């Protein structure tokens, strides 16, 4: 993506921020102040819009550093990060219902397999890891990790 397109993108982002900020209510009656909740975001929206516009016009050249990883970003390269993001999304949506001890081993094993870890190792780490983490955080440090389906036997976990 060129900086020109990015600049135009930020003009759009800035415009959205401006639009939303201007819709925020005026200062409340109980406070005698001329600046409401929209004051600060409005400035920020304007800054983003102007900076984006300048970027689209000037198209600044990047000072490229020798960095081997940035060559040729093909769309294939985004597949595996997308799977990782999807795994996080599944955890966000379903961990409360399914529980950490059910969902985490599945996700961990899957990511390990995706990273071409030998199958038996992946299963071993995938199951032992979350159990150890659960004992450490939920039992010792009392972080309320979701029990989900295991809630009925929660007294024993």
């Amino acid at each position, binding site marked *: 993506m060129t900086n020109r397109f990015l600049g135009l993108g930020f003009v759009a982002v800035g415009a959205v921020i401006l639009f939303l900020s201007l819709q925020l209510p005026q200062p409340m009656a109980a406070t005698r102040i001329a600046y409401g909740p929209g004051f*600060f975001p409005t400035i920020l929206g304007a800054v983003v819009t102007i900076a984006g516009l300048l*970027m689209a016009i000037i198209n600044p050249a990047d*000072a490229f550093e020798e960095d081997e990883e940035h060559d040729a*970003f093909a769309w294939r390269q985004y597949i595996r990060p997308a799977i990782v993001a999807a795994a*996080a999304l599944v955890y966000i949506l379903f961990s409360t219902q399914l529980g950490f001890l059910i969902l985490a081993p599945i996700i961990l094993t899957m990511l*390990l397999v995706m990273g071409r870890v030998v199958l038996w190792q992946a299963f071993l780490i995938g199951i032992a890891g979350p159990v150890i983490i659960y004992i450490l955080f939920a039992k010792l440090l009392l*972080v309320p990790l979701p029990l989900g389906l295991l809630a009925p036997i929660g007294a024993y976990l």
Partner: protein
Amino acid sequence: MIENITAGLALLFDPFVLLVMVASAAFGLFMGALPGLTATMAVALLVPVTFYMDPVPAVAAMVTASAMAMFSGDIPSVLLRMPGTPASAAYTNDAFSLTKKGQAHVAMGICLLTSAIGGLFGAIVLATLAPPLASVALRFSSYEYFWLCLLGLTTAAFMISTSRLKGAISLALGLFTATVGIDPVSGVPRFTFGSTAIIGGLSLVPVMIGLFAFAEIFRFYSRRNQPVKLEQNKIKGVFEGQAGILWKERRAIAQGNLLGTLLGILPGAGADIAAWISYSVAKRFSRNPEEFGRGSKEGLAAAGAANNAAVSGGFIPSLVFGIPGDAIAAIIIGVLFMKGVNPGPTIFLNNPSVVYAIVGTFFMANILMIPLGWVAIRLSRLMLSVRLNILMPIIFIFCLIGAFAMENSIAAVGVALAFGVIGFAMEANRFPLAPFVLGIVLGPLLEQNFLTSMMKSNGNLVAFFDRPIAASLAALTILIWVWPLVNLFRARRSAPQM
């Protein structure tokens, strides 16, 4: 006096207290070293554990854990380019660049020793100058804080090295991120679209986990030829040549100590802001500013000392006036109250031995840091021996928990994921992350202090310059902005004569 100190030391050198300190040191090192788990979280998680302890072991546990976590947050910065705590984020690029040059042990050594030095400096100030400095801190009202925030943002302008426009966008978006949620001044929910999930705002820890840890995991999986192991295969001689480096960077360390302690004392600032400001001030006055961001030992030393000094300094207003200097001190004060030890001027009269014991824990914790930190660095070799395709998924699980545990809310994990994608995209398009993070840290302080100042002064802008400290800070800020113009003007004037 003397008998109070002896009584305090007796409280401290109790076998149980020492055991608690070593255990919480290990815990703090562990929490800091894992990306996604922070120093503040380590202390918060200790609250229930210390509920039934005596005051001295309880505070010793928290002080030790926070100091250790503050240092060990640097370990994943060095090895994985993932800052373990927000305070480490300022110099992550420098630390990792050194690793790339095969100098991981140098980076680790600087982080460890400057952390200990900073912590000890803060402890000395705490032991000797606490009451007068706390009185000065009490002079800071919203006007002074406003200028301080603006000064912080000004220094950010000097941190942007690649593209100024991209830096400005990054900073503005960071400031914008901080406005999401209920506006504490007007009480109006902003940019939440009616959802209660983010009504509390996008808080720093999940955002940091996303921008750094998640983004790095995404980057790892996007590579066609994944590196099997970390590039560094051994970390030896952590202390080798450190004496020379520390001596060479003595100015940066001294400046980090001072700035860190002072910013720590001011209620509301704290270690995160201290590290950023110290880093950018070091860059501003450095002879080699171009090295910053590419493995500058100077920047590493300045910021590494500052964040630990701030942890010690943050305890000064807490102890003297019961007003916490930062989030960590706030939790520790709460625990002290619980134990019936009320911080405030009377603590020096009612519980002098406890005061000396607490001050003692700051010294102990920072001295213990050197051997225990060395062990942690040696152990971090384990991280190197584990293949990355195993390490990354495990870190991923820790990030899920870390984002959740800070607020006990699954929405925070969603925030982390969203910012992981944003961080990945920003990095791919060469947007600097540093201004973004600084924006999130300073944004709420800047806005709230501006608005409450305006409310107090009935919209009269003169009030911002009316008080001596505010006026000095204002002058300093304006001077920093105007100075380049003055220089330019002088260069023009003198040009014809040359």
